[in-house]
């Protein structure tokens, strides 16, 4: 019998990695020590800030100051999930524009990074699995076409089930007009799943013209929460905006994120751990990170 209690405590520990995964990279951690890895974006005037180290961050776990043991920037390869709304509104010029933007996105990844292509209308499709050969993913982009209704919440859920690779960072770019019309799951279910997943969501929100440029309030909240709760961002774009430029900036943002590693000290117990990450006094920049993680 699955009980509500066991369902809650059985969730995955977000951002928590076991030592062997990082030992190979940094070589300073004891085995069987739990390390928490926090994916952080630092920007100034909308552009990534580079050159930061352990002494530039203040980090607390459940209110207890932690020592940042390591700051990784380019050492951790990225697994990027492109999650694209291909419902019936995606036709003609809009489709061409999206395909060009997706290729720009793939072109911004570094050697060793991987990409996957997901599309969703009323059906969710894993069009190409994570692959280091980005040309294959680019070919899959060419075969996209728009039809049908929108199962946004189900798509987010399905992507979140992707098995995580502890040696890589996982991010998703979700492009949608925000109008879910066909999901089995509720937005709350999809959000809860996203919070338990290590994937960071960048939401590119293109408001539908039929709604006067606004998504229904609930969906609007869903998209914002999806980005906020996973440490990502919402990028609103207009129908005439340069989508390729937006995607180019997002991939730059993703690849220039820092990974802060720390061994939780002075904090015990399972459950929700709130994380607060800031730049130390005197450093300028805006920090974006997950608000916390669930410890099993």
């Amino acid at each position: 019998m699955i009980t509500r209690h066991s369902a809650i405590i059985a969730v995955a520990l977000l951002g928590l990695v076991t030592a062997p995964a990082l030992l190979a990279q940094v070589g300073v951690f004891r085995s069987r020590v739990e390390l928490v890895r926090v994916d952080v974006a630092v920007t100034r005037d909308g552009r990534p800030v580079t050159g930061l180290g352990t002494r530039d961050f203040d980090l607390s776990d459940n209110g207890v100051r932690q020592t940042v043991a390591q700051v990784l920037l380019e050492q951790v390869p990225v697994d990027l999930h492109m999650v694209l709304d291909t419902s019936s509104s995606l036709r003609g010029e809009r489709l061409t524009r999206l395909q060009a933007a997706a290729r720009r996105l793939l072109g911004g990844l570094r050697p060793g990074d991987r990409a996957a292509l997901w599309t969703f209308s009323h059906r969710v499709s894993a069009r190409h699995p994570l692959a280091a050969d980005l040309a294959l993913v680019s070919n899959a982009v060419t075969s996209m076409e728009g039809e049908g209704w929108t199962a946004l919440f189900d798509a987010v859920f399905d992507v979140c089930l992707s098995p995580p690779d502890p040696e890589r960072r996982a991010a998703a770019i979700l492009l949608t007009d925000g109008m879910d019309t066909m999901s089995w799951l509720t937005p709350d279910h999809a959000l809860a799943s996203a919070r338990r997943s290590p994937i960071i969501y960048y939401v590119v929100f293109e408001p539908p013209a039929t709604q006067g440029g606004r998504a229904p309030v609930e969906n609007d909240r869903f998209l914002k929460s999806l980005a906020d709760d996973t440490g990502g961002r919402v990028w609103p774009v207009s129908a005439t905006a340069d989508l390729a430029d937006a995607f180019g900036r997002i991939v730059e943002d993703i690849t220039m994120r820092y990974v802060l590693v720390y061994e939780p000290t002075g904090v015990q117990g399972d459950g929700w751990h709130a994380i607060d990450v800031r730049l130390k006094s005197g450093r300028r920049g805006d920090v974006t990170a997950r608000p916390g993680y669930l410890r099993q």
Partner: protein
Amino acid sequence: MQGGTFTAAGASLILGLVLCVQPPAFVAMAPSDSRATPVASSQGSPIEQAVAAYRESDQMQAAASVLRWSEADIDAAVQTLSGAAFILARTKYPAGGTDLSDIEAALVLHTHVAVLAMEYDLHQAMWSHLRAARQVLALVDQVERRRGSAGFPRLPRLVAPREWYLLALLVPARHMLIDERGTLAAEAADRFPLDADIQLAAGCLDETRADFNQQLPSGIRVGPPRATWTDDPGVTGGAAYWGGDRLTRRTQATPREEATRRFRATLAADPRRHEARLRLGRVLGLSKQRTPALDLLEQAGRDAPDSRLRYLARILAGSIFELEDRWNDAERAYRKAIGILPDAQSARVALASVLERAGRQADANAVVAPGLTPDASSALPADPMWTYRLGPPIDGVAILSRLGTAVRR
């Protein structure tokens, strides 16, 4: 965003049924060039030709000819048929509407244009002509009443009101139009209280409307019928229980109650209608009457001959088990649904969600992965849950088939 290609199969069926009434003799009259004149003896603009076709030859044959002639150019077809229908209406209505066959021809034309427009996702044209057809229908009723009182025999119908209502209830529509469809549903259900098809179709729309209201921000409900729909007797009666408008809560519960009433009426008229049984179960389940709901769904899941209905019964039962925190029962129900239709995504997502919440991430991924292959989108049948959420009954294709038979009669 939502779109309209989803029910093209149903639309094709209607169109196919309309086209198949064309007899061999008329095929010989149709020119080989698909854009040429539909009827050899007709002259003038395409609209005038279409009108002539209706006046000079058998009306159903003419309709089939015009549709076939213009199939290659949907815009021209809609314009042509639309023009013909409005000319017929304009020339006959002011004269007192005594020529019932011509008025009915206009009704047929409008209905056929609506079907054609539906086939090609021209939603505005579809609804424009369904509205026009409805006005003609009211005129037919008036003429019939006059003839009836004068002792005239009732003329044969090309499209009887019941069939027209069924068509209007079964055609796909976007959520924005749900209010108008709801009005039609109320009117149709009141006119045909013992008709299982009508009651099921109307109940489905009530159910969809209840769902839609639930999704709206607090306090906002689908509004009352638009003024253009309240001209005729019967609509206002239907509007009385629709009630409500924006920023009120009056309609929050009534659509669900109406859906319950109509599904019960369907089952009373025909106990073999398992779709009404499973929909009634679902509505009762959402109304916290979960024990009778699960009984109904169990019966539908066990006895329905249609695998899609058995699938829906199982997945809907699973959702009720979830509401009761009966996770093992939910998992069993979803697994049964997957066993019935392994390629349908909704049951896989539903089961995976239960597993993921239990911390069984790998199991959840193993459940959804087989349904995510890109080839599936074209090669596999649609998930019945998608159709269910759109409102029209799963039985719609069978109902439309019977409707086609009625149109041919």
